């Protein structure tokens, strides 16, 4: 994780597959991620499910499709908080932040490591069973979530050149 924390800004492309009990087919989305020190995260999702998510500190701004921007305070929305906090902390290499919200288990070596995250906050634990981050060296490669209702998602991350 110390490797992760060394970078001031990080650009990445993602590809995410969500498997939801309510839907017959998994939902696939892709787009870009930008993380900037200390706590800025931006996630842009391309059509057919366009979305723009901006997280600054505790404040989340979310615009889905052409709907107006919704502003959410993380503490008021534990289900989303558990997810975006994990993504931000993974990109930031912020083990402290991860340990504030999860009990963290580490396996593997520097070339191929895996963090297992179990939420400690009971509100978050109501929704999220477990999250995991896999990576290699300084880069996270996969972030996955398994929820208590059976929904799950896997996000693959590939480092991208600056300014996507």
């Amino acid at each position, binding site marked *: 994780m110390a490797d992760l924390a060394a970078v001031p800004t990080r650009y990445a492309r993602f590809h995410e597959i969500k498997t*939801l009990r309510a839907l*017959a087919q998994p939902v696939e989305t892709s787009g870009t991620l930008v993380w900037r020190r200390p706590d800025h995260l931006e996630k842009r999702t391309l059509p057919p499910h366009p979305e723009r998510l901006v997280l600054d500190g505790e404040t989340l701004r979310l615009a889905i499709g052409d709907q107006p921007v919704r502003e959410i305070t993380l503490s008021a929305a534990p289900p*989303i908080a558990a997810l975006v906090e994990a993504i931000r902390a993974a990109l930031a290499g912020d083990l402290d932040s991860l340990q504030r919200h999860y009990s963290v288990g580490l396996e593997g070596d520097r070339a191929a490591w895996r963090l297992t995250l179990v939420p400690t906050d009971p509100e978050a634990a109501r929704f999220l069973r477990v999250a995991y981050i896999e990576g290699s060296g300084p880069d996270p490669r996969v972030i996955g979530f398994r929820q208590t209702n059976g929904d799950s998602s896997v996000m693959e991350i590939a480092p991208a050149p600056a300014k996507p």
Partner: protein
Amino acid sequence: MKASQVRLASAFVLAALLAALALALAHLSADIADFLPEGRSEGARFMLDQVRQGPVASLMLFGIEGAAPGDLAATSRAFADKLRASGQFRFVENGARLIGGEAADFLFRQRYLLSPATRPEAFTEPALRADLMALLAALASSAAPLAAEFGLADPTGAAPPLLALWSGPSRVREVDGVWFAPARDRALLIARTKAGGADLAGQRSASRAVAAAFAASRHGSARLLTGGPAFFALEAERAIRGDAETMSFASGILVLAILAVWLKNPLALAAVFTPVLLGMTVALWLTTLLFGHVHALTFGFGMTMLGVSLDYPVLWIGHRRPGEAVAATSGRIGRTLAVTVAGAAAGLAGMGASAFPGLAELGVFAASGVLATALATRLVLAPLVAAAAIAPAERPAPLWLDRLEGMRRYRAVAALPILLAAATLFIAPPALVGDLAELSPVPKAAGDLDGELRAELGAPEVTVLAWVEGHDAETVLQREEALLPRLDALTARGASAAVDVAARLLPSVATQRARQAALPAPDELAARLARAGVGLGFRDDAFARFLADVAAARAAPPLTLAGITPDLLAARLAPLLFSENGRWFGVIAPSGVADPASFRAALASAPHVHVLLIAAEMSDLVESYTRQAWRWLGLGAASALLALLVGLRDLRALPRVLAPILGAVVVTLALLGALGIHLSLFHIVALPLMAGIGLDYALFFARRQPSGDERARTFRTLILCHAMTLATFGLLALCRTPLLRGIGLTVVIGVAAAMLLSFLIAGRLPVRSTPACRHRSPAPGR
């Protein structure tokens, strides 16, 4: 010790025991509400009561500041937990706890009956189709967990507006899940005590719990700010009690010291206090009998009254000549003393006719205390003193007294300040206090802080209040529902930031029935949903919970107040909808009122609504009592005048007696005005008291004083009385309680002026005598 001295000493001990007994039996009340006026109409009285004692009154507002935001949030969390654990609070809120937990689950379950979004058009096929498409987009987004949790069960979006309504009109932001003021680093909490606002003992124990909880949860340099009516009541009570205790103690010591220095005789000291203790006993007893309690303020004032009624025994002993029998002393000063007492008691008794409860109590206490002390002086003290042979030594009139009295030749000059004062009053009449808040012993800064916390928390204000009445909750809720469009218009126009009404949170049964009727039958809804979802990819069972909840809501009995079971929600409704004496009341609580007048105007024309601008109502009340004060002042003055007319042997002395007193009143009013003091009811109350004391001076100076040593006796005794009065009321002028301070200042200025003017105007011109004459005069005294 001689038998007569033993008798005197035992009379004193007996009087002290009686006074102690009366004090122990008296029900001393320190609740300011007992002392303050009630509203004029039935409804106003009731609502003012609610403001003072109801759920609104048990609200506590807290701010935590002075540390880093993280520390403040941590302090807020620990503080709230400790407050909850103390068991003293009905609820403690420091963050958006409506998310998750029992309250939110309850509201979510009841969404179709309670939410304003339950309308027929929300369940049509096109509306459902649009909802499902939005839901699909949400499921594909980062908000998927929320959409899966709530969206599938509530695709029409009944819950969000309902949760927003119950969250209240707060304008807070959040840091680490804890409420913060919008514009500064200040964590905010709101709590309601289990003890009522008027239950001062309960409030005291809650406030101790607050102090302990904060001390145990403080992070870094965080400090606590407190607001809320309960806190004010406590502060006021503490200030009043503190003042009353300090005052009676300090003035007691001071008067004792002055008397001891003057009398130089412990037995004489005991003699002087005997009638006063008896007078206090009677006053306590009579006040308790008439009012059921004695307010601490009344008692504090009564104790300082000791300084005044102490004049009577002092005047008696001071005028007694060695070896004189009771009848002889009485023959010289009895009549003058009687007129003095009658005049003073008559002046004070006028106050007893006031409809302002505190003043009526003061009037009864003061007048009965004065009369009883005077009677005890004549009937108890006089024989005892004669038997024990207590009297000041005969001393000739000193030279300086002659010279001082010589100044009376120029007494026409004394008219100058009086005329000047009268002219001042004529040109600029003294300003009257209109706001009861100015009379509160709680400092203004505390009031400002309370307003600030209130605005930041979006807690209802206590400046304006409207309410709806009815014979049951349903009637009240229906009447409120009829008002909702007006209230929305007010908010839209900016007259108020938000208006909290029970009917928004708990719709009437009639409205809930209408909502049930808007819900499609289960089969019909399932069919519409299936058609709306064609091609969107939802599984068949995705909306099972939605269908079940709608079906349950259709069949459920409408919710009533008793059905709102979660504590948090019940506590939210309690101040807005409640019953009292078989009537139901719905409070319309606006916050952020920018324009109280238009708020009142908009509601005044609506049926079944009462509006009260509290500040205006209170100042109206005070104003009406102030107007009334002039009436009982006049009544008191008239009866005092009557006492003078009956009692004065020589009516030609009347102008000489009245002039200094009227002059003193005029000078006092003008001086208070010049000091920039707004006249309150309490300054006016002090006038008859001050005039009563002035009457002492005027009558005794105006008395025929056949000999030089008699003049000296009178002068010395009156100066002693004057010193005691200045000492006690001078202390009163230092009080924090505006009532006591007002009385103290008025009396100090008034008696000083009365002393000076009485000496100059009421006293007789000295007989023309040359210094040579005096030297030739025989032994002084006779």
